[in-house]
């Protein structure tokens, strides 16, 4: 017995000794040397221990815990010069890094770090866009736009010609969680989709996650697009801006107190309407948008920092006072970052988000208005814990209070109370935990769990329908809880590193969605309405499995990836045929429900450094829906089903002054419904339709070119000219195809194709001082 006790004692002692082997933590932040901006995702690598690289979190913070000893640390970030520091680790250390941006414009191309992140990291279906990287790509009207650049990636499809709307892996446009400094942006488009709400002057970076998001994200089925605003230079004042064909931009930033607090304000306004005013036909026409981004931050002390940021944007389209529509988003984020100690990081965010539209028609004495609004208050708390270089944790909660004012058409001059629809309220909650763990040097996993709930709150009456027949109704008093839906969302990702150059990854994720965008149109409209899960509308659920192979070539100069996915969607919502979306007393009586499935293969080959950079992306995919009441209950191709989608993007640094870029896009036609026959009814020609979306639009292709000239720097002044040509060979791509009686020959009908944007040249002048 005594012997056994001794053994136990020894085992305990040895494990105690093992634990007692002294370990210390190195932590700090990674910043840009010139502006003080945090570098999200910059990495600190320990040379002595391979695969211990620690990427900075979204606030530039990193933490590595290592046994006592001497180490060589490398701070690296794409496009920045590598920095090395040697440390003698015998106590906890705080090491901040200030990396210097690579001087791309010098004769010698600086050797920037060639990362093998895509091999070593577990994340799949994730692409990060650096705004500086994409600045030189050709874009329509010369408006740099992060939403248009992500459409050049595999698995992300544009919603149409020149459109900032996008579909990810067969998901609908409303299934993308678009965040601006953590605040959801409900309608990320301007001017009916031709521009996005993201003014690239104000943006630091954007990450898109195609369905395999970690547990800290939730609420949408298909993707997360996480856009972060810049903090503003905390060292020197800077003014930058641009004058373009469509709009002008101006941004001012600088320190409030040197290296302690800074601010950034950026605005943009289009002036298309000023040109229209020149023509007498359009003298009454209003057509513009503007937006404003502002951010400030303050370092309370070494470990605590607060940020406040906001966005405000509005579109206006109208003819005199007779017809007008305006819409826009407002968001606000108040954040508090706290480095609790070298291993613990906390972030608390209070977020406001608002989207509204107003549509007004007046004729004579009366004016009618249709307005709708969605408004959120959102509280997020997250803790991050870094116990060892192999292991890190994130956990927290998120609670959102939603208020939705459904669209109702009201006669302003002679309002009828019954026409006004009641606000709908809901509470959305989630708790989550996520762990990133390197099991061995060639196997790591990223797994997490998110528990989410959606509770309907009073005061409103909810009707229950069987098809469109009302069977019951539930009256909820002020503040009363109605139905609550609970969902468990596992998120898993595994990475098997095959060798230094290749890895195999697999993932599974379930996502749920309680806010649904109702649209009966083939394209997105500002007047599409958001509606929450209710007694009839169940939370949407998606289950996605994906498998990927990642391979790097030529010292990580080339990256190749192949990913496949299969996604099953439940509780999809659509309007019934001929739904009355404007005036129906309860829009829920106009809805149908069903499911969907999507699968595909995505290939990406990227050249990351050298004078010539760029990528080729290809997607092969299929997206289908099955909705009871549509297409006689048979599977049909979804509106976003597109079989082949190819993008080739290239950028070439011709000389220190001149850089050239181009992209070529080719995709096969989207699924559409064309008539199978025609007849006459009520004195008009009508068309007869058979299957839903059984036809295809013509194939689409286009080449865009751009050249950027950077003038030699004069003191503080930096200027550049960007010339671009959209649709360089003037292809007439079909925007819409409509069917009509031939005006010249009433005995026949014809199909008419409308094309937009052939040869759109533009020039933008950018400055910075």
């Amino acid at each position, binding site marked *: 017995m005594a012997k056994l006790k001794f053994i136990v004692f020894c085992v305990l002692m040895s494990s105690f000794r093992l634990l007692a082997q002294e370990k210390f933590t190195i932590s700090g932040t990674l910043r840009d040397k010139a502006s003080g901006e945090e570098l999200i995702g910059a990495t600190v690598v320990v040379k002595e221990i391979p695969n211990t690289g620690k990427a900075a979190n979204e606030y530039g913070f990193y933490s590595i815990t290592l046994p006592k000893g001497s180490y060589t640390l490398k701070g690296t970030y794409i496009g920045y010069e590598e920095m090395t520091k040697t440390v003698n680790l015998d106590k906890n250390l705080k090491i901040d890094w200030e990396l210097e941006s690579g001087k791309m414009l010098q004769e010698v191309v600086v050797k920037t770090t060639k990362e093998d992140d895509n091999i070593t990291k577990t994340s799949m279906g994730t692409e990060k866009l650096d705004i500086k990287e994409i600045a030189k790509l050709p874009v329509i009207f010369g408006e740099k736009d992060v939403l248009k650049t992500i459409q050049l990636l595999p698995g992300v499809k544009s919603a149409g010609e020149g459109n900032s709307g996008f579909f990810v892996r067969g998901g609908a446009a409303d299934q993308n969680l678009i965040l601006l400094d953590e605040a959801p942006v409900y309608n990320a488009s301007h001017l009916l989709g031709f521009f996005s709400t993201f003014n690239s002057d104000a943006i630091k970076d954007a990450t898109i996650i195609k369905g395999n998001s970690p547990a800290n994200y939730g609420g949408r089925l298909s993707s997360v697009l996480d856009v972060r605003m810049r903090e503003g230079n905390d060292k020197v004042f800077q003014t930058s801006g641009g004058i373009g064909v469509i709009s002008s931009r101006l941004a001012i930033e600088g320190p409030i107190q040197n290296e302690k607090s800074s601010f950034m304000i950026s605005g943009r306004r289009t002036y298309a309407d000023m040109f229209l005013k020149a023509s007498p*036909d359009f003298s009454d026409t209003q057509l513009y948008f503007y937006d404003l981004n502002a951010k400030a931050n303050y370092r309370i002390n070494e470990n605590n920092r607060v940020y406040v940021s906001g966005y405000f944007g509005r579109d206006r389209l109208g003819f005199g006072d007779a017809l007008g529509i305006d819409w826009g988003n407002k968001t606000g984020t108040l954040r508090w970052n706290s480095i609790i100690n070298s291993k613990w990081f906390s972030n608390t965010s209070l977020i406001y988000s608002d989207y509204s539209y107003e549509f007004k028609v007046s004729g004579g*004495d009366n004016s009618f208005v249709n307005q709708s609004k969605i408004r959120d208050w959102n509280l997020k708390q997250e803790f991050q814990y870094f116990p060892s270089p192999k292991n890190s944790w994130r956990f927290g909660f998120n609670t959102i209070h939603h208020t939705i004012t459904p669209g109702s058409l009201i006669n302003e001059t002679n309002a009828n109370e019954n026409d006004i629809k009641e606000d709908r309220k809901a509470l959305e909650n989630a708790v989550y935990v996520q762990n990133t763990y390197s099991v061995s040097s060639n196997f790591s996993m990223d797994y997490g769990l998110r528990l989410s709930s959606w509770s309907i709150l009073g005061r409103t009456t909810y009707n229950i329908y069987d098809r469109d027949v009302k069977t019951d109704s539930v009256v909820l008093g002020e503040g009363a809880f109605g139905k609550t839906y609970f969902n468990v969302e596992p998120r898993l990702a595994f990475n098997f590193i095959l060798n230094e150059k290749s890895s195999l990854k697999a993932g599974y994720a379930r996502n749920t969605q309680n806010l649904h965008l109702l649209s009966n149109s083939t394209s997105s409209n500002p007047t599409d309405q958001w509606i929450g899960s209710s007694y009839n509308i169940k939370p949407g659920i998606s289950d996605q499995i994906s498998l990927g192979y990642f391979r790097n070539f030529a010292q990580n100069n080339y990256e190749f990836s192949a990913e496949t996915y299969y996604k099953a969607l439940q509780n999809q919502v659509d309007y019934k045929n001929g739904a009355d979306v404007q005036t129906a*007393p309860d829009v829920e009586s106009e809805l149908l429900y069903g499911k969907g499935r999507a699968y595909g293969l995505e290939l990406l080959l990227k050249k990351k450094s050298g004078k010539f950079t760029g990528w080729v992306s290809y997607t092969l995919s299929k997206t289908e829906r099955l909705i009871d009441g549509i297409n006689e209950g048979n599977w049909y191709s979804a509106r976003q089903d597109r079989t082949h989608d190819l993008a080739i993007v290239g950028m070439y640094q011709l000389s220190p002054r001149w850089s050239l870029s181009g992209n070529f896009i080719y995709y096969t036609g989207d699924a559409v419904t064309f008539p199978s026959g025609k007849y*006459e009814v009520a004195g008009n020609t*009508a068309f007869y339709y058979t299957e839903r979306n059984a036809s295809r639009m013509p194939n689409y292709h286009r080449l865009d070119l751009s050249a950027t000239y950077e003038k030699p720097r004069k003191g503080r002044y930096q200027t550049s000219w960007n010339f671009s040509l959209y649709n360089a060979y003037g292809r*007439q791509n079909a925007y819409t195809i409509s069917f009509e009686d031939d005006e010249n020959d009433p005995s026949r009908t014809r199909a*008419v194709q409308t*094309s937009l944007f052939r040869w*759109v040249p533009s020039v933008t*002048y950018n400055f910075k001082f």
Partner: protein
Amino acid sequence: MKTNKIASILLSLTGAWGLFSCEKEITLDLNSVNAKYVIEGEITPNQKATVRVIKTVDFTEPNDFPLVKGANVSLSDGSGNTEKLVETGEGVYQSQKIVGFEGKTYSLTVMAEGNTFTAQTTMPTNVKLTGIKVQKSSFSPPGSTAENYIIYPQFIDPAAFGNSYRFIQTRNEEKYKSIIVANDNIGNGLPNSRPILSPDFEIVLGDNVTLEMHCIDKPIYDYFFSLNSVQGNGPGGGTIPTNPVTNIKGGALGYFSAHTQQKISIEVK
């Protein structure tokens, strides 16, 4: 860079606006399918029922729709009267005894070439059209005449919810082709305040305008509402097209409507 230089560059580029959109007729390889029957039936107060039966043709064919002759068409009025309609013209069938009454429900059966189609419709109680009001329009989209007019049908919607209306507007004998329907989802029980907007059918001083108002039942409202919304092809594509929601059972297109009918004409001055 001087600002005036930039401005001149910008101005020279504005000419590009005209190039942004262009239209052309195209040839598409559209499905050819078996012809469908199209039934258009109406019965109005104190008038005989009229039913027209035609067939669809392929999109590429001329607008020459085959008339369905020799069909067996019968009508009953819900009060025990049933009669076989007489083919008074090619593909046009008419009742001989049964005429329309408010509040009655009519059932139609069409048997043609081995197919049977049925439909039911109820004639609503009439809502009196008391007049039409003309007002100068403040709505002048690009290309319109500065001085154009819009008209307001004058009637009081009954207090009970569920009234539907269809309007047919005629200007100097020319019929406005767009379908105009309304219901009391908005402004139930109130005097009508909604104008008939016809931006592509301008009314100017001196025009003779006739407005016809039909009180229709809900299935017919749904038919015309969906006929209107699903056939439209606005910029950006409009609604996903489908066949309108019909009250005819058995797989035919079209509608069978019992409705009241009132007409008022005025001269715009």
